[in-house]
């Protein structure tokens, strides 16, 4: 097999960049900022090269790179992308420079450490998406917690220490369960294949042959770990704390990429590795997803804090994604994939916007605002645009994802119950209510707070951050097939992998 | 019950009773004297077992050496005789229950066990055998004991120095 070096470069770039940052004098803050931005842009360019070389017709893994690592356990450094991971890699590399740019002035202390941790975080996230070896995957998955812990803990808000430890312990708990399941699966593989392996492609063949009872345990361990990350109701309680306390950049990355790792894990591991169990647990998990959609929306509605509102809206949006994944047909899963991207863009934009205004007023209380549309028109427009995207206005990105998911879940033979769709659809209405109501209270009406008259509108830098996001919001809304066709073949493969043993069982 | 049994029980009672008084008496000098009887009783039991060398060593070292040293220490130290050596918290009842249960278990186990026995005539003297064993089969242990004593000495010196 020919080794392709593009993905190793993709991982090395932020790593080397991060290490180099440590050698820059910490007082040259602007140099550090430019350097961090440049590194993340280089990473973005590499990911674009991968995108343009990617063959959409081939649903398998491409750009494979394998390097034997631990011979004793047959562990190798094995990376590659398929349609699903490519989209998420692009999302990551796209959001990272934007977050660095957005925190240009809001992070004014320990810039060096901040840039270092952001680049390490990017490395961890990319690693999670490109790993084709369970062991490698697990290392990236866990190692990524450490920079995130520090980002929330050092640059966060008042309750940052509590929030960061809660975040750390929640995710650690889930991932350790997954570790046990990974080892269990690998040990199982060693009895059926004759050797211990953590190679994902080989485990795809082993997974479906695991007896149902053991498979159920393994599935639950994996699903539990991913469900914490997503987060699926009722495991979501870490999320509002972490989101609210994290600095803007942290929130954007957390919402934009980290949560996607949970849904990515469900699609990449849970479904293909444990098809029988996935099908039997699909209704139960979908119920939780639908509860999450409605619960998240209702709780978001009563929030007084803008950031908390956006955080709870994430719970609702990710509920849609999980519902789509467990509907297990092409429309729904494709919708889930596109919704992952959408959520990254629109929630990312919302967090950036909340950050922009917080930086000026130092408050996120909705009641403090009012009537700012007259004072800062550009900002008000941007906020409206992002909100509408999040609501799912036709013509913008959110609509495509939610529509596909609802359509798919309606037709789903696995769920086989239209009530899932009915309840989930109500979530769309709630979303319109809480977001637009929030917008109304913030942007319209009388200016209650005299401080608001002093507000300055968005700077060029801030517009530069949001503009690319808005471009993609419109792009996906109008012409989604650019993105859908990337993942289509891959999603078909995954679904086939799920259905084959299921059909065999029915016969 | 022959004469040996009678002697054994005599020594056993002396050992046990005096050990009990060592722990319960409030006066440290009395405790030291009761300890003398404990050692003496143990030495007697060794004699009954045919372990003449150990019996003598027990007498010479423990009774003649350690105990005398202890008494000297007590007498040379001012006012130690009036020091209350009993601690305040005793927890007699739980301790008695715990120790009683464990002792019962031990007695049951030890009487029930088939011990490995070898039929052999008691040697007249064990000293020679011991000497040969220590310098041949257990030479390494013997040498190690020497180092142990050296370390103990150095440790004691280290504790005593200011």
């Amino acid at each position: 097999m020919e080794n392709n070096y593009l993905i190793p470069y993709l991982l090395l770039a932020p790593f080397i960049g991060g290490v180099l940052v440590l050698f820059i004098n910490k007082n040259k803050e602007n140099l550090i900022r430019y350097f961090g931005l440049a590194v993340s842009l280089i990473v973005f360019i590499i990911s674009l090269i991968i995108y343009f070389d990617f063959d959409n017709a081939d649903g398998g893994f491409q750009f494979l790179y394998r390097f034997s690592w631990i011979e004793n356990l047959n562990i190798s450094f094995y990376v590659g992308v398929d349609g699903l991971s490519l989209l998420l890699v692009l999302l990551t590399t796209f959001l990272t420079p934007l977050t660095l740019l957005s925190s240009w002035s809001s992070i004014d202390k320990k810039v060096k450490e901040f840039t270092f941790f952001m680049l390490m975080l990017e490395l961890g996230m990319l690693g999670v998406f490109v790993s084709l070896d369970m062991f490698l995957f697990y290392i990236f998955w866990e190692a990524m917690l450490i920079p995130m812990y520090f980002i929330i803990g050092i640059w966060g808000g008042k309750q940052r220490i509590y929030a960061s430890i809660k975040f750390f312990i929640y995710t650690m708990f889930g991932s350790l369960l997954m570790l046990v399941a990974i080892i269990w699966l690998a040990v199982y593989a060693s009895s059926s294949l004759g050797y211990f392996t953590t190679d994902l492609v080989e485990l795809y063949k082993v997974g479906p042959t695991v007896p149902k009872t053991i498979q159920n345990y393994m599935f639950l361990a994996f699903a539990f770990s991913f469900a914490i990350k997503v987060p699926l109701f009722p495991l979501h309680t870490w999320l509002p704390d972490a989101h609210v306390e994290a600095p803007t950049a942290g929130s954007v990355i957390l919402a934009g990429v980290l949560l996607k790792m949970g849904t990515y894990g469900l699609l990449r591991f849970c479904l293909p590795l444990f098809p029988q169990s996935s099908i039997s647990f699909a209704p139960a998990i979908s119920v939780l997803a639908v509860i999450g959609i409605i619960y998240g929306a209702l709780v978001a509605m009563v929030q007084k804090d803008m950031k908390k509102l956006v955080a709870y809206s994430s719970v609702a949006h990710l509920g849609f994604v999980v519902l789509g994944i467990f509907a297990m047909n092409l429309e729904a899963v494709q919708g889930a994939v596109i919704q992952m991207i959408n959520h990254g863009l629109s929630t990312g934009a919302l967090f950036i916007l909340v950050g922009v205004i917080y930086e000026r007023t130092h408050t996120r209380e909705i009641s403090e605002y009012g009537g700012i549309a007259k004072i800062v028109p550009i900002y008000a427009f941007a906020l409206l645009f992002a909100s509408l995207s999040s609501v799912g206005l036709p013509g913008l990105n959110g609509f495509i994802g939610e529509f596909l998911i609802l359509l798919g879940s309606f037709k789903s033979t696995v769920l086989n119950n239209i009530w899932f769709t009915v309840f989930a659809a109500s979530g769309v209405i709630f979303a319109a209510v809480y977001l637009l109501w929030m917008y109304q209270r913030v942007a319209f009406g009388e200016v209650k707070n005299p401080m608001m008259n002093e507000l300055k509108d968005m700077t060029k830098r801030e517009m530069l951050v949001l503009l690319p996001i808005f471009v993609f919001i419109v792009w996906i809304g109008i012409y989604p097939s650019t993105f859908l066709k990337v993942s289509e073949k891959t999603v078909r493969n995954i679904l086939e992998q799920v259905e084959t043993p299921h059909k065999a069982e029915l016969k | 019950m022959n004469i040996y049994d009678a002697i054994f029980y005599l020594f056993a009672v002396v050992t046990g009773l005096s050990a009990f008084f060592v722990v319960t008496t409030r006066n440290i000098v009395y405790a030291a004297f009761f300890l003398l009887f404990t050692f003496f009783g143990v030495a007697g039991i060794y004699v009954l077992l045919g372990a003449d060398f150990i019996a003598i060593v027990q007498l010479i070292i423990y009774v003649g050496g350690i105990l005398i040293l202890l008494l000297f220490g007590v007498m040379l130290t001012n006012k130690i005789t009036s020091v209350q050596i009993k601690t305040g918290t005793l927890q007699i009842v739980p301790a008695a229950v715990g120790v009683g249960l464990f002792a019962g278990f031990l007695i049951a186990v030890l009487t029930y066990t088939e011990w490995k026995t070898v039929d052999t005539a008691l040697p007249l003297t064990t000293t020679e055998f011991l000497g040969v064993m220590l310098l041949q089969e257990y030479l390494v242990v013997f040498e190690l004991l020497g180092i142990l004593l050296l370390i103990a000495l150095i440790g004691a010196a280290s504790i005593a120095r200011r």
Partner: protein
Amino acid sequence: MELSINYILNELNFIKPELVISISIVLIVFTDLIFDKRKQILPVISLISLLITGYFVIEQFGMNTFAIAPAGSKGMLAVDPFGAFFKMVVLFASFIIILFSINSSEIKLSSDRHGEYYTLIFGMILGMLFVISAADLILIYISLELLSLSSYVLAGFTKQSLRNSEASLKYLIYGGVSSGIMLFGISIIYGITGSTNLYEINSLIQAPQLPNITFILASILIFTGIGFKISAAPFHFWTPDVYEGAPIPITAYLSIASKAAGFALLIRFVKVTFIQSINTEGYWQLLNIIDWKTFVVLISILSMTLGNFAALWQNNLKRLLAYSSIAHAGYLLLGLAVLSNQGLLAIIIYFAIYAFMNLGAFLIVMLIANKTGSEDMDDYNGLGFTSPLLSVSLAIFFISLTGLPPTAGFIAKLYLFIALIDAEMITVAVIALLNTVVSLYYYVRVLKHLYLVKAEPDTPIIGVSALNTVLILMLLIPTLVFGIYFTPIVDFAKVSVSLLGF
């Protein structure tokens, strides 16, 4: 009767490491007497003799034989790669500890007693080397006593504070009781079998056996003595107080070397005495005398849970590390509970890694205490920004102790979990995992104090000398590198699994 000690003279080359250490003891005593004013010679002599001993221990990786066997018996010592590995751990820890001692302000305070200090350390080493390869209960007892006696004195060495003397006295009393109990157990075993040699006992009890209550009693009594050394619950009560009171180098030493010796002894005792056969996959078939698996699993779960939960409330770093060391004893015991060579491999890997990370953690605690005179967590506030090297290192050591990738501690846990799952002990694995989550909380609490709490104006800036930097890196680099590339350590461990006779 004729004495023939030729057999010993012929086999002296099997105990070269022990001989070198014995000679060093004498050498140190004399050097201390002769060069009364030049105390800095002592650590140099110690380091050199450790290196020589290390060379001879490496030789032992190629040996697999009994040593010091008088005619007609099996031999007092078993020289094998398994023992050689644990001897290496002990020697490595000793080497690092002597470097610690050079830097420790606590030890410097009592510089007039350095001769005693190094003699006692070497007494401990000698005891441990013998404990590790002893195959005879008498030798085991005597060498354990040598080890204990030296460590009692060392625990109270500085005599600066009340807690120091308290540590020493507590250690002495608990140690005395547990070694007495162990001796009682040994005497019972001798009473049943008529032998003190582990290998002979094993062949004497091979005949089909029913669970024998006396044997169980004796084994548990002996386990008490060993459990005390490895600080497994419920024999752990001394650990927090002694760890807190003893000078930091000695605390670190007890947590690695003394524990390694105890584990080597425990494994040898269980495997050699009770084994019936080993199947092709490396699982041990033990004699049906005592259910070691259940027993060890219970002890280990107790140790992990107790250690981790008690550590949650600690504010003193040394006490925290004490409870963490109890918890780690629990994890290590799981490797034994598997009763397989795979589990043994996991223990060996765990120890190799544990030595680096735990010594590292203690080193940083010591360097900080040298400056601030305190091990209280509140005195660590904001150090992350004033003393970056120390804090980053401490953070990495603690992340490794938690068992998070990409540090070596993860590999240690990984192999443990592999062994457990391979033996289908999933429930136990999950309990261990839950414990790891609990432990995350208290390890991360230290990180919180270092980095998340704002630095005060009076937060000290702690400089690190060149020697200390080297020492830190010596422990830090393996902790990181073995987390990424652990083939060498696994290959090394595979060699070390071989225990004499099996």
